[in-house]
């Protein structure tokens, strides 16, 4: 360190992990199990996920996920903010689907207070949330294909995602961490061309999804890399708590938008795509179809945005009556739940966030066993995790 007095470099003592050892005696040709480390800085882990893989040759026989690198203590912060002050924080969990996070939080607090957002606000919320679902799935598709070795889709996906982010920007000024909704409704009235922009995007988008599909769906390499990889049965998926596209690809037709409609979903027609085999390929097909269905919902919603107020009558100071509520929405990644306990003051007594990525990631070990090292990146990609949400 003495050579670089101004570099800021320090002596860092790294203690060896006692469980982490490679027995060189037996691994050469003796081919017993070895343990290798992947991440937390590996590009295919979509953030800072570290995985310890136990290998027999090239076959994975066990795994352990090490998480927490992005832990910021969001739930603790919540207890020291007012209900409104906490709203922007939820955008920073699943940062590729900030609008969905905000919707879940606002609706949970509304349920706690016993108020409902006005119809106009609910429809606009639905439109923006479905656009966000498309944007989130586009990030998933681009990076997932990139991990597996298909370079082109990511350019196409980000091209369309850009259009959605422009709509967000026009609506609220922000692209990523939008803080688009407020407790009780909306802060901003829809801008004049919101309907036109949404319509133009959604009508074009049909052909765009077809375009992605021509690149992948019947591509021999894609099929070879995804079919039969990371299979999880419906029973296992339910036991492990997997929700969202992961559960639907295993054949369970369950979507909270239908099972317990929130926002304005009860007014629109849409299908719940399901898979049969519960493998990576089916999860791919399910998400592709979900994007089409989201565009379909948006097109229906812009036909008839009711007039009226955008904010419910609530005071400036929110004091929800004591009690508790659990409210779940269908976020792009699965069930996003908020469990809020109020003690009657302006600050929540406890907020628990049920993150879909965290729970889905637990299925990784079941899915990866028996596959090759090269499939690990495919399985991490297919789970569609965001580490900001896993670690909170």
């Amino acid at each position, binding site marked *: 360190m003495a050579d670089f007095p101004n570099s800021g470099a*320090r002596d*860092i003592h790294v203690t060896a992990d006692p469980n982490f050892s490679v027995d060189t005696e037996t691994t050469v040709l003796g081919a017993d199990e070895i343990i290798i480390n992947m991440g937390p800085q590996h590009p295919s882990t979509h953030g800072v996920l570290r995985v310890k893989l136990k290998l027999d040759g090239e076959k994975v026989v066990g795994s352990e996920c090490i*998480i*927490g690198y992005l*832990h910021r*203590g969001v*739930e*603790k*912060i919540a*207890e*020291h903010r007012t209900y409104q002050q906490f709203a922007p924080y939820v955008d920073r969990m699943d940062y590729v689907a900030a609008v969905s996070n905000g919707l879940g939080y606002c609706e949970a607090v509304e*349920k*706690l207070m*016993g108020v409902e957002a006005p119809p106009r606000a609910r429809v606009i919320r639905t439109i923006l949330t479905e656009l966000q679902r498309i944007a989130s799935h586009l990030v998933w598709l681009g990076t997932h294909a990139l991990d597996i070795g298909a370079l082109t889709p990511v350019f196409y996906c980000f091209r369309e995602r850009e259009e959605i982010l422009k709509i967000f920007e026009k609506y609220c000024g922000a692209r990523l961490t939008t803080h688009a909704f407020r407790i009780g409704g909306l802060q901003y009235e829809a801008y004049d061309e919101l309907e036109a922009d949404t319509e133009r995007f959604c009508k074009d988008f049909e052909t765009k999804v077809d375009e992605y599909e021509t690149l992948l769906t019947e591509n021999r390499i894609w099929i070879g890399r995804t079919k039969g990889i990371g299979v999880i049965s419906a029973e296992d998926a*339910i*036991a*492990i*708590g997997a*929700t969202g596209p992961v559960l639907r690809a295993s054949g*369970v037709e*369950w979507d909270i938008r239908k*099972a*317990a409609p929130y926002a304005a979903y009860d007014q629109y027609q849409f299908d719940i795509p399901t898979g049969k085999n519960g493998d990576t390929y089916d999860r791919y097909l399910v998400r592709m179809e979900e994007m089409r269905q989201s565009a379909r919902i948006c097109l229906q919603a812009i036909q008839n945005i009711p007039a009226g107020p955008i904010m419910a009558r609530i005071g400036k100071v929110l004091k929800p009556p004591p*009690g*508790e*509520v*659990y409210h*779940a929405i269908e976020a792009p990644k699965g*069930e996003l*739940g908020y*469990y809020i*306990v109020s003690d009657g003051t302006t600050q929540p*007594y*406890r907020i*628990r966030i*049920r993150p879909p990525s*965290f*729970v889905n990631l*637990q299925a990784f070990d079941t899915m990866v066993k028996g596959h090759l090292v090269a499939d690990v990146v495919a399985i991490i990609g297919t789970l569609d995790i965001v580490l900001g949400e896993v*670690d*909170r």
Partner: protein
Amino acid sequence: MKRYKNRFGDGIREAWIDRKQSILVVDAAQYEEIARYTRDDEQFNLLADLTAVDWPRREKRFDVVLNLYSFAKNERLRIKVHVGEKEQISTVSGIWSTANWLEREVWDMFGIVFSGHPNLTRILLPDEWQGFPLRKDYDILTQDTAWIRENLGIESGQ
């Protein structure tokens, strides 16, 4: 709820409906048995969430809270158990395997011990971290300064 009362009697301490949501408070001694009954007979096969709430002034300071969902009935149910600071509670990870990580997170944040858990270690915080951050007596500015000094080489994480 009536079925629960009939079957478990005093095992169900309280039962009420808050904002259209059913809540049961169950006895810690019968917790595992009730959990199994809930999954098998009442068909609540998805454990959506398992968490805890700290009430430091109460005699048994923690609530362990389970949020359950039944695909067959399209219903949700919440089960709570009161746990004291020095007490242990049995794990439900054998009943819903999703409880494995969720219970680890509760241990990490609240320090509640789940007896019989296959791997009760910290999950979000570093293994050597001292203290349980989501307890109410853990102030928001509190941190494990010794750990930070040793591992990050800085005086404070603030």
